[in-house]
């Protein structure tokens, strides 16, 4: 435990620009009251600048706001009238434009108003933290440091903390605790070197890619095809990322590198290429001006040809031969093949990797505390699935060292700098080991942070080479699930299937786990070792029975599904689902039936069965009908059912755990966790708290009223309008009508009392009706072959 308990009651964000406003939004998501400051407007409402920024948050995509109420936690303010509010803020985040003089001016203005223990941080992507600290009065320096959020801050996991020379250690720890648990961020501590860790390497990687593309004559759209998901990187790859970031911003970061890194061996590379300068001069700044490296005209995309300065039709892909190399699952063989191939695209890719490897080896000692920090910084800040050191290590450290040396000597690399001695050591096999990761400055291996907040991460992010045995002791395992315990009387079940789809093995395994939990454990938690929680029922596993028309066996599987949902609800031990990523269909139904869902903020939740022409058949329709009747005021079941019906009929997906609660898949009593790595910890805490509170399962609902046939008619009134208004297809209408019939309790009078099994039976029968329908079969086939829903 920390010595002094640190509570953040209120936060101020100075600067309502893109970053400031979005940081405020994420604080608001976390229910942290936030005051958002900007300059006083010269005319009208003096808060107008902050107000406008707050308003703009509602329209941005992807949404910085996780729920509709979050925005209410942000209070607009201006530096003229509201500096006195700062004294009540436990954390003040300055996030104004990247100008040293502007920042220091502002510090002079706010310094007298800060509380004695206020943590004061600057959000910057590269300015020197120590130089900024020098402008502060001495009493503030212990409370000051730099942070670096990545854009968009809600979604990018990384925050770099950059201490200044006088930063108080306890303050840094408190800040890290807050960033990790309350805001859910992945923190690395960076040194005060230009652009810190992630941008230093990430931007270098982009510059190296640009330089190598020119050298090997690779079109920009081909570069993006090759340097995106095929390398485990975001779809925006290289040039689209630059467009999204803004070409002027990108050029500014490059300029900072040029100005602040005169002695970097790659200094010659730190300049904007001529074509980039021309685009900026012409006002083509990327996504924000709709024209940049790419532009869209009608439906056709165009990409810049840097040689001619003209736009050409975009969409060209990498060569199949090169793409085949990238598919090789053995990294050592893959890199060997890339390097040895004579194909310019392969040589280009190898060159990009080589230059990044070269760069990180040369700079590791100056810029980062360990190789692990470099890999996490790039993974969390640039969205690579594997960090650069991990990539190198997996490709065979020594093999790659040899290639880099050869290339450097042959003048093929972007710099002639020699690899550092540690990298060349003959016995070196990598930088990540069970005992820790390599710290080049200290010449030693360093373990993970021992800060208490990380004891909440039972399954933290790992780098390749680190110890990563399966968590806990296996209690039971079959082809569908692994059930384990870490000795705390909680049985944890993880699905083993692809995308954690639910097929017969998972159902059997989960039921066996429930048997065991009921016999020997206090509680059961469903938790996956990685996202998604579950994409729902495993349609593929139904195919054999489906092809043979063995409807009985499919129906018995659906029944099994429903029984499992009901068992999660009524088991004598508390059940908890720990969700992150997709929580679709059957996965959502399980999460709706457990005693408590513990949901990572980034949970995307929905009953999306209509996408494959089905309806929720694992208790989802039943659960909504039941909840509607329980929520009905004055007996009007239909009024509370309508929104639930629309959610199911439109396959509405909650785009955060909070929005999922607003839609109603998750209940107000379900718990939202901001850091997905803390999910298992919180889920267990919740499960144990339920168990220790003298848990008894809910009493079986003997009967509840349904909206009945008139309720269904009122819903169908709306459906008829959607059908006739050509918003839905005839088959959508048919499916929605069936969903309405099920959710209103079938062809009974309004207000009729039914039990849960009654609706489960309706649900199952309707599911079977749809499964036998050829249009539904077309939808399923399309999903299984293309992965995309078919509208028919």
């Amino acid at each position: 435990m920390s010595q002094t308990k640190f509570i953040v009651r209120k936060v101020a964000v100075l600067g309502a620009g893109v970053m400031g406003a979005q940081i405020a939004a994420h604080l608001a998501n976390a229910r942290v009251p936030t005051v958002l400051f900007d300059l006083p407007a010269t005319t009208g409402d003096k808060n107008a600048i902050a107000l406008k920024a707050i308003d703009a948050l509602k329209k941005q995509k992807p949404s910085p706001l996780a729920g509709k109420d979050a925005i209410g936690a942000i209070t607009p303010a201006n530096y003229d009238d509201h500096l006195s509010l700062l004294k009540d803020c436990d954390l003040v985040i300055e996030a104004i434009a990247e100008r040293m003089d502007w920042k220091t001016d502002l510090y002079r203005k706010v310094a007298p108003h800060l509380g004695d223990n206020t943590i004061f941080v600057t959000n910057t992507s590269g300015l020197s933290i120590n130089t900024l600290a020098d402008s502060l009065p001495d009493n503030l320096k212990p409370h000051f440091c730099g942070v670096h959020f990545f854009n968009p801050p809600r979604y990018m996991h990384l925050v770099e903390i950059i201490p200044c020379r006088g930063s108080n250690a306890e303050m840094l720890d408190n800040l890290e605790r807050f960033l990790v648990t309350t805001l859910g961020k992945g923190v690395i501590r960076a040194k005060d070197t230009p652009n810190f860790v992630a941008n230093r390497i990430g931007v270098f990687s982009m510059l190296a890619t640009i330089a190598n593309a020119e050298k090997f004559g690779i079109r920009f759209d081909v570069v993006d095809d090759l340097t995106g998901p095929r390398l485990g990187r975001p779809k925006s790859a290289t040039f689209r990322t630059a467009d999204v970031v803004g070409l002027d911003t990108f050029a500014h970061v490059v300029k900072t590198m040029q100005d602040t890194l005169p002695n970097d061996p790659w200094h010659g590379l730190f300049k904007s290429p001529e074509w980039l300068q021309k685009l900026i001069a012409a006002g083509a700044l990327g996504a924000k001006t709709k024209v940049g490296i790419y532009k869209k005209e009608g439906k056709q995309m165009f990409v810049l040809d840097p040689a001619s300065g003209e736009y050409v039709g975009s969409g060209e892909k990498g060569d199949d031969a090169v793409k085949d190399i990238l598919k090789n699952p053995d990294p050592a063989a893959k890199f060997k093949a890339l390097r040895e191939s004579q194909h310019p695209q392969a040589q280009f890719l190898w060159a990009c990797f080589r230059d990044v490897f070269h760069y990180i080896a040369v700079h590791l000692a100056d810029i980062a505390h360990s190789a692990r920090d470099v890999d996490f910084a790039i993974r969390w800040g640039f969205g690579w699935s594997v960090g650069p050191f991990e990539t190198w290590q997996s490709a065979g450290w020594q093999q790659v060292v040899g290639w880099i040396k050869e290339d450097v000597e042959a003048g093929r690399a972007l710099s002639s700098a020699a690899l550092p001695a540690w990298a060349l050591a003959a016995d070196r096999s990598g930088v990540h080991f069970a005992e820790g990761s390599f710290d080049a400055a200290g010449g030693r291996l360093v373990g993970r942070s021992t800060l208490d907040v990380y004891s909440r991460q039972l399954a933290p992010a790992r780098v390749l080479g680190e110890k990563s045995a399966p968590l806990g002791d296996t209690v039971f395992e079959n082809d569908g699930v692994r059930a384990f315990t870490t000795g705390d009387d909680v049985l944890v079940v993880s699905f083993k299937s692809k995308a954690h789809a639910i097929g017969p093995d998972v159902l059997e395994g989960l039921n066996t786990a429930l048997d065991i939990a009921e016999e020997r454990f206090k509680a059961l938690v469903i938790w996956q070792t990685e996202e998604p929680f579950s994409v729902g029922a495993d349609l593929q596993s139904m195919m054999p029975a489906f092809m043979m028309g063995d409807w009985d066996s499919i129906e018995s599987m659906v029944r099994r599904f429903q029984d499992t949902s009901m068992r999660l609800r009524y088991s004598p031990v508390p059940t908890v689902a720990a969700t992150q990523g997709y929580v679709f269909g059957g996965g959502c139904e399980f999460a709706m039936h457990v005693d408590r869902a513990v949901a990572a903020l980034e949970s995307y939740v929905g009953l999306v069965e209509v996408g494959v022409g089905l309806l929720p058949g694992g208790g989802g329709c039943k659960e909504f009908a039941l909840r509607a009747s329980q929520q009905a005021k004055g007996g009007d079941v239909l009024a509370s059912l309508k929104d639930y019906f629309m959610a199911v009929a439109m396959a509405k997906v909650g785009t955060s755990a909070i929005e999922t609660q607003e839609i109603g898949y998750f209940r107000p009593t379900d718990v939202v966790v901001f850091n997905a790595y803390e999910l298992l910890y919180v889920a267990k805490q919740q499960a144990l708290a339920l168990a220790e509170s003298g848990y008894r399962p809910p009493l079986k609902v003997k009967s509840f009223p349904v909206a009945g046939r008139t309720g269904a008619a009122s819903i169908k009134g709306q459906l008829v309008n959607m059908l006739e208004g050509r918003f839905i297809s005839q088959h959508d209408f048919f499916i929605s009508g069936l969903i309405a019939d099920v959710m209103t309790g079938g062809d009974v009078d309004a207000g009729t009392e039914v039990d849960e099994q009654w609706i489960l039976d309706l649900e199952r029968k309707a599911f079977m009706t749809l499964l036998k329908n050829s249009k539904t079969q077309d939808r399923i086939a399309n999903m299984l072959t293309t992965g995309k829903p078919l509208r028919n």
Partner: protein
Amino acid sequence: MTKQVQEAYIVAVTRTPVGKAPRGMLRNVRPDDLLAHVIKSALAQVPTLDTSLISDAVVGCAFPEAEQGLNMARIGVLLAGLPDTVGGVTINRYCSSGINAVQIAADRIRLGEADVVIAGGAESMSMVPMMGNKVALNPEIFAKDENYAIAYGMGLTAEKVAQQWQVSREDQDAFALESHRRALAAIQSGAFKSEITPFEVTLRRPNLATGEVQISKKLLDTDEGPRADTSLEGLAKLKTVFDAKGSVTAGNSSQTSDGAAAVVLVSEKILKQFNLTPLARYVTFSVKGVPPAIMGIGPKEAIPLACRQAGIAQNDLKWIELNEAFAAQSLAVIRDLELDTTVINPHGGAIALGHPLGATGAIRTATLVHGMRNQGKQGYGMVTMCIGTGMGAAGILEIL
């Protein structure tokens, strides 16, 4: 033939300004308060009339429930301070309720069973939304395909009319723009002054700092609907609401509104007894059903029928208040009947002025009577509209 024993005359008619729903100035004003207000105002225009002679008040309302439930007509009569002996009946035929109220009131007089009757309409779409607070359709609608249209939303029926009568998006938008232009011109020239009774809105807001309720008052004296910033370009940008590939938008449909109107009708005997000036003579009313899927075409059936009943030619109508439920249905009716567009909605229509459903018939009666009289026109005028689930209605007055 008619069993009429005497004529019925309008001696007073007034309306509230029409507020935008659900965010206009009347959003928190109860419809029964609006009703009492116009009843009082109408009677104030005939101060010599002995109110104990009023036998009944017939009030139209399209969704008579909640704030406008409980027989709003009788409540409005009592709130207006009329004697306990005055009756009150709330009637509903959706959008024609207001003109039907005039018809029922006139017919009581024409039959000789009453000499003074109040007619009117009141609707708060801010408080009671279209379709009412609880939609509860009959399951039998979905037992037969041919009954599905009972469940069609009004916008969808407008799309059906637009398709069947081939009314283009451009024509609908141009019609909408013209409605706004005429309404604004009428407001600017003060043409509505004589028919509108301003309404003072009382705002009650908490002062969180002092813990007191702050009461403030604001006078509404002008219709809120007409927009000076409407343009063809702006209208063309709006998305269709009722049909993904259709042509009906929020811009070329009537607005949702709050408002009320009251009409005082008397017999010839009363005219003489109290020395009252008749503003208009009630002539006739017609209603006719059409397929629910194309309800908007209703006036095409009702207008010729009313003219036949009155024994006049269509061209004898000098002013037609044709309710602009949708530009699509208005244009279809106008084109099929070859109506003279210069006499239709000279002061704009519901697309600009708003359409408080059950009140509209009475409100547009006020516009017709005062509009023609202000311009020194005498002779026949009409109030006509389409009606949900497929009907058309038309009432004819002779303006004196």
